């Protein structure tokens, strides 16, 4: 398959009062159409920065991003973003939030009735058709994230960018959302870049896992091909030898090769890890800061 998205040797340098800070150094990644890519790495390594450069919300200092051989210079609906904290507009209902996107993207390409069908279709896809006329503050965190995904899917993006989409959810809701996402992915076969902290999530969902080295000057460390058959089932995979090999490969990368030395008290992070039970890398510093 042909290369859809080419992240070509991007450097990202942020000017700070203390001098330039190099967040990314020669990040290079080629993504094929229909591929599901996970970006994993310790917090502060610049995963979000990569995503924001692809989204066009940030401009790379050096290098660039090509989508269908065209350079990305600004944000656009063909690179829809699912933000970490849903970022639904609180004064609009779920339906209206999706409508805002659909009206903008399919302006004059769809009739009013077609738009309505399309909005409802997307909300149905994420199982939110029962609550589509509720406002964000009336629905749970998982439901908000579903609407956020519906909004992004409704733009019919060429690449779907997800910035820790389930990071703010509890473990059970997260598992449920991952299953939903796999279901949607089976149907639509989108090209997806997803940032995650969760090793299981990465192995379960991805075709390839891109592991990033620690910052500053973070770059792509290793890329792991996940050749597990689809559809995947989390319960049967738990016993699967290949699944466990991949899982330990990621863990080895994160905890041995790229061991994060934290000077900041580790107390809060150990508490958080215990809470969710699964082996995930916990975000104690804020990597969105860099973004």
């Amino acid at each position, binding site marked *: 398959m042909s290369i859809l998205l080419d992240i070509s040797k991007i450097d990202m340098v942020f000017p700070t009062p203390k001098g330039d800070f190099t967040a990314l150094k020669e990040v290079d990644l080629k993504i094929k159409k229909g591929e599901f890519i996970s970006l994993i790495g310790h917090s502060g390594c610049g995963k979000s920065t990569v995503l924001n450069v692809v989204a066009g*919300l940030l401009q790379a200092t050096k290098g660039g991003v090509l989508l269908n051989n065209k350079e990305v210079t600004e944000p656009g609906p063909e690179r*829809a*973003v699912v*933000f970490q904290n849903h*970022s639904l507009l609180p004064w609009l209902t779920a339906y209206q939030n999706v409508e805002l996107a659909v009206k*903008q*993207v399919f302006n004059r390409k769809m009739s009013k009735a077609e738009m309505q069908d399309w909005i409802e279709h997307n909300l149905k896809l994420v199982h939110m058709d029962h609550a589509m006329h509720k406002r964000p503050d009336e629905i749970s965190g998982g439901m908000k994230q579903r609407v956020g995904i519906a909004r992004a899917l409704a733009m019919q993006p060429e690449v779907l960018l997800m910035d820790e989409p389930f990071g703010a959810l509890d473990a059970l809701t997260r598992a449920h959302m991952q299953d939903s996402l796999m279901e949607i992915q089976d149907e639509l076969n989108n090209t997806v870049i997803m940032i995650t902290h969760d090793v299981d999530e990465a192995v379960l969902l991805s075709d390839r896992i891109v592991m990033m080295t620690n910052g500053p000057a973070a770059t792509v460390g290793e890329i792991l091909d996940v050749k597990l058959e689809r559809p995947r089932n989390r319960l049967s995979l738990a016993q699967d030898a290949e699944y466990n090999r991949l899982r330990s490969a990621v863990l080895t990368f994160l905890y041995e090769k790229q061991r994060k030395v934290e000077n900041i008290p580790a107390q809060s992070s150990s508490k958080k890890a215990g809470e969710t039970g699964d082996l995930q890398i916990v975000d104690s510093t804020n990597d969105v800061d860099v973004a």
Partner: protein
Amino acid sequence: MTTLIRKMMTADSDSTLLVKSLQFLSQRAKAVVLPMVGIAVFLVIWSFAANSIDTSLGKFPGPKAVVTQIGNLYQEHQSEREKKAAFYQRQEERNAKRIAKDPDYQPKIRAYTGKETFLDQIGTSLVTVMSGFILAAVIAIPLGIAVGLSKTLNTAINPIIQVFKPVSPLAWLPLVTMVVSAVYVSPEPMFAKSFINSMITVTLCCLWPMVINTSVGVAAIDQDWVNVSRVLRLPSLVHVQKIVLPASIPAIFTGMRLSLGIAWMVLIAAEMLAQNPGLGKFVWDEFQNGSSQSLSRIMTAVIVIGFIGFLLDRAMLQLQRLVSWDKESANR
């Protein structure tokens, strides 16, 4: 009350519903009783203090004098209304007679020019304050949005706002008066000059809190919402309309409530000096009048001014609850 409820709880644990309803009642009672107690204590202190202050116009008015004056002022209003009705009736009769005599006669209708009553003056004040406030909002909210969106504009305009914000209405008034009398010249003016003067002074004073609050609200919009708009490539006008305006509604309303409070305070001072026939003029006229009733009439006006200010704020809050998506901030 609470001890009673506690006793009941221990005596009869089955009737929890009764206990709960009693608790609810006692809470409601507290919400009613405590303010009552506060008002009662205030009235007592007021009447004692009033009794012990002697002025050249007699004793300082206490609560009783104010109640009497409220009655008087209402009576005056009624009798003035009767006079007005009688005047128009006489005029109509006279015109009818003339027309009966001479069918070609074009009847002349003269407006009644009696003195304004207290209630009329309240009406004038409300109209003036709302006109000034609305004019300020029409200027301030778009300006605030522009300043909030553009850091450049903010840096350019901020010093001007900071300098004009603390200026008292009394300082503006002479300038406004002179400019209005120079610019607003027409043989048959639609509005009285005194009205225009008071209104513009109100506008000048309540402009700034709205500009500042709106701009701060706009500048503090959640970056994620801005990113949503950028990913959708919303055109700037749609961005303002669909994202910026709704997102900063809570801040805009905070500014509007502050401004309306200031507008009402400024208005009284402006009316005193501009001789706009509102509550300010009422206070000034009574002060100049210097009769034995003057002080109690002024005190009545003070209390009425306070009440109206309170009601204006409540009305604004209700409007905010109606319009704003952010019910949390509307509860403050």
